[in-house]
């Protein structure tokens, strides 16, 4: 039955419809009470349908291990963002439309995870982007948000145009848009120059989503301008969509191809540039923006390796990344006064004002550094060993040296939270909010201590791409 196979997508669609009904009816406030529950049910449903396999729409839409793995990650991310939003009941911006747009974006990403045909991919990507174009400017009457929204649209449309242009080259050179058919042909520059150029352009669309250097310029500005909760979403879940497509495309290449080397070079530039720029940031969201540029570079370790282990590592790391980044944003959202952008100095004395939040922040920051025993460490270890095994020794060394650079600003957050002095009053955060964040931090630790089940899941997904 197709209906049961598509249950995760359908459930999210039903949630979106309910949000739509709520937005046109008068009962706007009650949404916040049922939405987190609905989102968590969505996570359960997605987890239950992990084993679903199948193909519909003439092979354009495939349910395989990879798509189900990423759908789980997307559903979990959506649930967390909904949980963050539900903690802020007094804000005017959290109308049902806001969550509806979030939901549509997540829904588009779920479709993206299953698309195995280039035009379907493109449509799913646009579906997830359009609602973000509308979401980012929503921040009361804030001008910065409008600026961020314009930047995102301008950048996004330019890159999308490039991607479409590239798509036309691929179609012209290969006469097919199905990934399975594309995989069986050669992708070296000497034998198919037109297709490789086309693919490189097409990839740009996803590099943009991932905020990989040199497509990252929107990232810090948009995070800074957008609402904290929107930034938490934009920083995490759309990256999953980009990674899943890149994982599917990376399986096309063999070691040492031009595109693979492009991955490696861009990855190295991205992590170095992102980390160096993050060192001087004071605004927490800008800092996290540059940090996400650096993390996009780390994911490239696995994609450049291109082996089953590399793709597994990239999938695993992107899941670990959204967990730890969301944990970080969770604290950012909690400490901001009236939805303002918190700076590093706002973290001062957090261990006195909100010990629970300080603990969550410490776990998240050390996970983003890649310190054991957190998910960030295991993820990075998998990436490094995959890249080293494929001979990208220089890339691995660049990556570990970048860890040394990045420690300074992540530690800066912890330092402000634990050793900074502040006269500010204690934060009033509800117990439920702290508990939710605590669970998130525990998951980050747990995935770091016992990564085997999740890794095996990702490995089974990646193995299917490498028959």
């Amino acid at each position, binding site marked *: 039955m197709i209906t049961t196979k598509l249950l995760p997508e359908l459930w999210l669609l039903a949630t979106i419809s309910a949000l739509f009904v709520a937005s046109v009816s008068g009962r706007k406030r009650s949404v916040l009470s049922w939405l987190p529950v609905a989102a968590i049910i969505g996570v359960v449903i997605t987890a239950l349908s992990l084993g679903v396999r199948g193909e519909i729409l003439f092979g354009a839409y495939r349910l395989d291990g990879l798509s189900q793995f990423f759908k789980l990650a997307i559903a979990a991310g959506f649930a967390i963002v909904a949980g963050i939003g539900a903690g802020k009941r007094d804000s005017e911006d959290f109308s049902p439309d806001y969550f509806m747009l979030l939901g549509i974006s997540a829904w588009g990403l779920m479709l993206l995870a299953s698309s195995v045909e280039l035009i379907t991919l493109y449509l799913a990507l646009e579906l997830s982007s359009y609602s973000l174009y509308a979401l980012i400017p929503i921040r009361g009457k804030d001008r910065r948000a409008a600026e961020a929204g314009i930047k995102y649209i301008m950048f996004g449309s330019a890159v999308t145009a490039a991607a479409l242009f590239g798509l036309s080259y691929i179609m012209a050179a290969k006469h097919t848009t199905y990934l399975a058919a594309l995989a069986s042909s050669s992708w070296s520059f000497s034998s198919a120059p037109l297709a490789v150029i086309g693919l490189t352009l097409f990839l740009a669309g996803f590099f943009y989503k991932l905020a990989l250097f040199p497509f990252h310029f929107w990232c810090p500005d948009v995070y800074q301008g957008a609402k904290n909760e929107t930034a938490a979403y934009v920083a995490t879940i759309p990256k999953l969509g980009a990674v899943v497509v890149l994982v599917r495309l990376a399986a096309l*290449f063999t*070691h040492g191809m031009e595109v693979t080397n492009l991955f490696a070079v861009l990855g190295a530039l991205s992590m170095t540039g992102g980390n160096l720029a993050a060192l001087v940031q004071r605004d927490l969201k800008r800092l996290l923006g540059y940090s996400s540029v650096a993390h996009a570079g780390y994911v490239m370790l696995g994609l450049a390796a291109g082996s089953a282990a590399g793709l597994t590592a990239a999938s695993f790391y992107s899941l670990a990344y959204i967990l730890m980044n969301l944990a970080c944003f969770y604290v950012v959202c909690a400490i901001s006064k009236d939805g303002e952008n918190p700076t590093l100095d706002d973290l001062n004395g957090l261990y006195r004002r909100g010990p629970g939040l300080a603990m969550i922040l410490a776990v998240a920051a050390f996970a983003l550094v890649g310190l054991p025993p957190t998910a960030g460490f295991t993820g990075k270890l998998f990436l490094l060993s995959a890249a080293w095994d494929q001979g990208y020794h220089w890339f691995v060394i660049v990556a570990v040296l970048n860890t*040394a650079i990045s420690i300074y600003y992540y530690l800066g957050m912890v*330092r402000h939270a634990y050793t900074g002095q502040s006269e500010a009053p204690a934060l009033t955060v509800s117990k439920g909010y702290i508990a939710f964040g605590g669970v998130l931090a525990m998951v980050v630790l747990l995935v770091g201590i016992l990564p*085997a089940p999740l890794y095996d899941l990702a490995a089974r997904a990646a193995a299917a791409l490498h028959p």
Partner: protein
Amino acid sequence: MTMQFGFPVLTTLIFLPLMAAGVLLFVRQERTMRLLTMVVGVLECLLCLRLFSYSPHGAAFQFVEKVNWVPALGMSYHLGLDGLSLYMVLLTALMLPLCVLGSWTYISTRIKEFHFCLLLMTSACIGVFAALDFVLFYVFWEAMLVPMYLLIAVWGGPRRRYASIKFFLYTLAGSTLLLAAIVAFRQVGGSFSIPELLEKSYSFKFQIWAFVAMALAFAIKVPMFPFHTWLPAAHVEAPAAGSVLLAAILLKMGTYGFLRFCLPLTPAASVVAAPVMIALSIASIIYGGCIALGQTDIKKLIAYSSVGHMGFVTLGIFLFSVSGISGAILQMLNHGITTGGLFMMVGLLYERSHSREILDNQGLGKHMPAFMFLLGLFSFSSLAFPGTNSFVGEILVLVGAFKGSVWIGFLAVPGAMLAAAYMLRLLQRVTWGAPTSFKPSWWDLKPREWATLLPLAVLVFYIGLAPSLAIKTIEPSIERVLTTMKSKNMAMGISEDRHLAQRLHLPALTVPGDRDPIQKERP
């Protein structure tokens, strides 16, 4: 799970403090927190009694436990002890209750978090010494940074922010390349398991790179001469218990790393690098001693003396002789006991005078005789007075040094003399100097303080007078390391008369080539 003994003693040693830390979060009374941590500390020591069943001539690794962790990558939860690590684990377990006792009144704020950090430190440190899986080792090695950072940053002195971040950045930056080396060893060695990696031999070129990556991490941790600047800052600002843990256990991880990984995994590179390492060790000894001579801050003085003492340890290691290495291991243990004791005493002194300057703590001999007796004891041990523990270690290292080359011996001896100079200067001022800020309210040692220091004082004499027990336990393991080194180097055809350039082209014994199974996986 494979185990030689039915009871997983190492796992219990690691996880008992962790579980206690979890329980601690729900305790409300301050006294209960201290008591709970104390009880855990005593339990750890009692558990350690089981480790005395270690048989020196038995299997290479004993008390082995092994469970799959991430089978897909060959990572396992693999623990075990040999002569190199046995005493380090014992020392770590001993330090926990002493640190709790020593901080009973010293730490009066954020008591829960303090003991939480102490417990986490203990688990991580025991883990570092017991891990037989390279990744597991790295996990513990890095995990220990966070509680140590917090110990300095939250409970430290006035410049704690600077000192703690310097400590963290230095040690983390050093160990990032270690991670690359670990990943590289998996590719060429096919496993993360240390015993399996030890059996293989690697090409010379690979050894050099791996050695550099590992040695950097370990040298910063020791710390060896050019990388030592984080240590005085961290020691001065850390609370007493933090300094004790730092001196007694953390520094030992670096030298332990040299012994466990550099020597047997990269034997040829170690031989090539030995002159440099020996030169740096001697530089540490003399530099540490000279700088210590000029300090007015007691803690700084002891911190620089640590640099010198650890120089003796690295010197002993890179002499590649049984006496040198057994001296080094004894010296690791001794430095932990002696310097741990000294830092504890400085902490007690600080509680009275609220100053660490020598000037403010002068003339205590008449008023605090018991205190001065113990301070004198540890100071004499620190300058390696015959009859105390450090004498045995230092003399073994020096014997090894003279065996290696007379020049090395001659250069190392002034270090021993410098130690006498700066320790006696400290002792003389504190005992007989004109009192400047002494108040009659400064009490002599209380029973709790006696209990903190007495175990260490007993060990000073015990190891000093009867060192053969310890030496007998560690020697077989050292011989194993040295024979591994020699046989690997012999098999690779490395001898003194070959030039570096020639060695670079030497083939390895069993290095898997590009077509090896682990490399098979291709897209």
